[in-house]
């Protein structure tokens, strides 16, 4: 696994990619509006979301015994259950199962958990033949790329890109028509389905009450890989449990709507065990690998709630940062707002602390999350952790520590603010600053800075109160009177004058102080 370049480089590379920008804009816009329509058609959607959130929180609060119960049911259904503390262990278990069953050819349905454990390279190194069968993941595999979105893995590729990849890697005619390309994939992968020995899937949900794995797909590859090969292995994160079928119904109502705007995906498959004697298809052996890989550590802390994520991708589509930088910039399996919490949670904060910092905390993610995960709260918590345990830039640290010291000391605060104001105003031309040094340089990299006022609000207010007292008039407030005593503010000035933006030099040069503001004397 090659080293991941630093975050700032990943961001720059993504921002510089105009095609990516267009693709992301188009795709996230489409998914957002489809989600909105789908939720408009969901009766009592608020209650459904509340119930789903409640179910997840209940499971997490009781996870150990839920896992045990789940295992009991699975075993009773004839499923062999394995436990993997780490990603490597999960991969090792898959390999062991494959060897035990004399498996050589493997077909995989989409599974983020196996992305997380880097399963494919491990299987390939051991001489196994592994083919991804989800169309997007198949292209990713052919291209030796990584998926960039939870639901649409190749959101970052154009149709021309896909055609070129397929032409190069599997020698099909060059085409850029999505339907033709999908047809090539169908033909090629059908061969793979028919001759595969083992199918590997993830699991969207595990239903505790019945010992059922639930797979949610649109293409049918999830069905193919769990129907035709003689062995089925499902790798499931331990947090994916839901208590009952009734709960599953809630989640099914939310997942497709949140992910693609469909009421339900084409195929929802509930799997309870291997084929029974007399069945004509279905695997002879079914295995479930319960994966920890850092989830128990996440559960122990402030961000436990994130384990309620159902991997719908709605937060990605709503996030203006994701829309700007795409999935690869997040550097690991899970991109977007959920990734900014899960990646540090599973891999450790060290080396990943930039992810939770790269957010404006706008809250669009929380608004669309089907289980109402409070992502901004968790991002803030991770930032707090970062300050506690990681190195932060010295300038920022000193600056904010100084802030903490002077904020409760009004006189000092005013003096410091006045000094800062003077410094900035000294650099202003026509009321604007084009370049600042240090941390301020971050501001002026992308925009000008409006020069601070010559006088503060408090100074103007105090002056006004004093003037009113001196002249014996009451500043302003006779109730609602248009012709009341007191100085009325001046007539409507030109819009540009209101805040200094857009004033011509001549207009601005008018008052004392020369900066963007109207001097206090002209106001009431």
């Amino acid at each position: 696994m090659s080293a991941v370049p630093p975050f700032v480089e990943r961001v720059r590379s993504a921002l510089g990619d105009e095609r990516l920008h267009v693709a992301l804009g188009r795709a996230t816009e489409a998914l957002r509006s489809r989600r909105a329509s789908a939720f408009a058609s969901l009766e009592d959607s608020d209650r459904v979301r509340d119930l789903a959130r409640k179910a997840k929180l209940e499971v997490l609060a009781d996870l150990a015994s839920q896992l045990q119960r789940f295992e009991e049911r699975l075993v009773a259904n004839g499923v062999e259950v394995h436990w993997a503390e780490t990603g490597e262990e999960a991969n090792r278990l898959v390999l062991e199962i494959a060897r035990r069953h004399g498996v050589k050819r493997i077909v995989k349905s989409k599974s983020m958990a196996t992305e997380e454990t880097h399963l494919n390279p491990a299987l390939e190194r051991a001489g196994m033949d592994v083919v991804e069968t989800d169309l997007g993941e198949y292209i990713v595999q052919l291209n030796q790329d990584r998926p960039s979105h939870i639901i649409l893995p190749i959101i970052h590729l154009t149709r021309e890109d896909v055609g070129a990849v397929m032409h190069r890697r599997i020698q099909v005619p060059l085409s850029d028509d999505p339907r033709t390309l999908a047809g090539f994939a169908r033909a090629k992968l059908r061969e793979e389905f028919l001759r595969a020995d083992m199918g590997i899937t993830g699991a969207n949900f595990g239903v505790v009450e019945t010992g059922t794995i639930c797979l949610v797909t649109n293409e049918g590859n999830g069905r193919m890989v769990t129907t035709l090969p003689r062995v089925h292995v499902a790798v499931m994160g331990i947090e994916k449990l839901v208590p009952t079928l009734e709960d599953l119904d809630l989640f099914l109502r939310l997942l497709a709507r949140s992910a693609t705007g469909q009421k339900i995906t084409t195929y929802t498959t509930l799997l309870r065990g291997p084929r029974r004697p007399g069945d004509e298809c279905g695997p002879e052996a079914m295995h479930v690998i319960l994966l920890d890989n850092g989830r128990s550590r996440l559960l122990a802390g402030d961000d436990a709630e994130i384990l309620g994520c159902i991997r719908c991708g709605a937060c990605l589509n709503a996030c203006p940062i994701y829309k700007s930088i795409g999935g690869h910039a997040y550097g690991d399996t899970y991109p977007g707002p959920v990734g900014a919490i899960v990646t540090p949670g599973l891999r450790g904060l060290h080396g990943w602390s930039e992810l939770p910092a790269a957010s404006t905390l706008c809250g669009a993610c929380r608004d669309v999350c089907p289980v109402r995960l409070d992502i901004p709260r968790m991002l803030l918590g991770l930032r707090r952790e970062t300050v506690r345990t990681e190195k932060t830039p010295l300038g920022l640290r000193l600056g904010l520590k100084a802030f903490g010291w002077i904020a409760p000391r009004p006189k000092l605060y005013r003096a410091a603010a006045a000094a800062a104001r003077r410094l900035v105003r000294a650099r202003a031309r026509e009321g604007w600053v084009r370049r600042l040094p240090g941390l301020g340089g971050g501001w002026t990299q992308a925009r000008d800075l409006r020069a601070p006022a010559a006088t503060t609000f408090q100074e103007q207010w105090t002056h006004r109160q004093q003037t009113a007292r001196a002249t014996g008039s009451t500043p302003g407030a006779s109730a609602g009177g248009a012709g009341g005593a007191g100085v009325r503010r001046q007539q409507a000035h030109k819009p540009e004058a209101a805040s200094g933006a857009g004033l011509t030099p001549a207009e601005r040069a008018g008052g004392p102080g020369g900066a963007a503001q109207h001097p206090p004397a002209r106001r009431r």
Partner: protein
Amino acid sequence: MSDPVQLFHTCLVNEIGPEVGMAAVRLLERLGHPVGVPLDQTCCGQPAYNAGFHDEARSAARHMLRVLSATEGVIVIPSGSCADMLVHQYELLFRDEAEWREKAHAIAGRCRELSQLLAEEWPRMPAGARLRARVAYHPSCHLLRGLGVRDAPLELLRAVEGVTLAEVEDQEECCGFGGLFSVKQPEISGRMLERKLAAVAASGADRLVSCDLGCLMHLAGGLRRQGVGLAVQHLAELLDEALP
């Protein structure tokens, strides 16, 4: 005569946009509210809080709580993000300190973001608010999603004769300010700014209005950098301008 109110003017208004504070004062007085300004207020601590420096944020917060607890009545705040800080985040900051958490809870109950209050009381405002303007409204994220204030600013704009609301694509998308994010991630911030300004330009507006000075500085700074002369204004300034 209405009840006196306290103005938590915010540090940005004090240092960078005093005219917003003055406009807010005039609006409140027109509604009959005598305005008090606790002069010891400094900063709500949000920059430190969002950056993860929670001890420093608490230091600022305790001071604000002391200053505001020494007053009575409604606390009016001309900033969605600062209002959200006091209304929601202070209690989280003092999660483990019962005494301060209670103070924070009491203060939270007294806070009103300016447009919230104005919209509720607008019927009492002298009639005749008039201004010819095509306004692009930018709902700041903390105001919109943090406080749930969606309609108040729009109602206020609609109450001004002559104001038309321009349709801005992806209107509710974050402008990219995000406090310190604007300086720590200038490239992403800049990209988001570009998108927002492009949408504003496409809307045909001649004026850009918001309720958060941070967003306004970011947006105005971007317009200035682009050389675009679009007027940028806090909602309080527009209403103040429109009233006879």
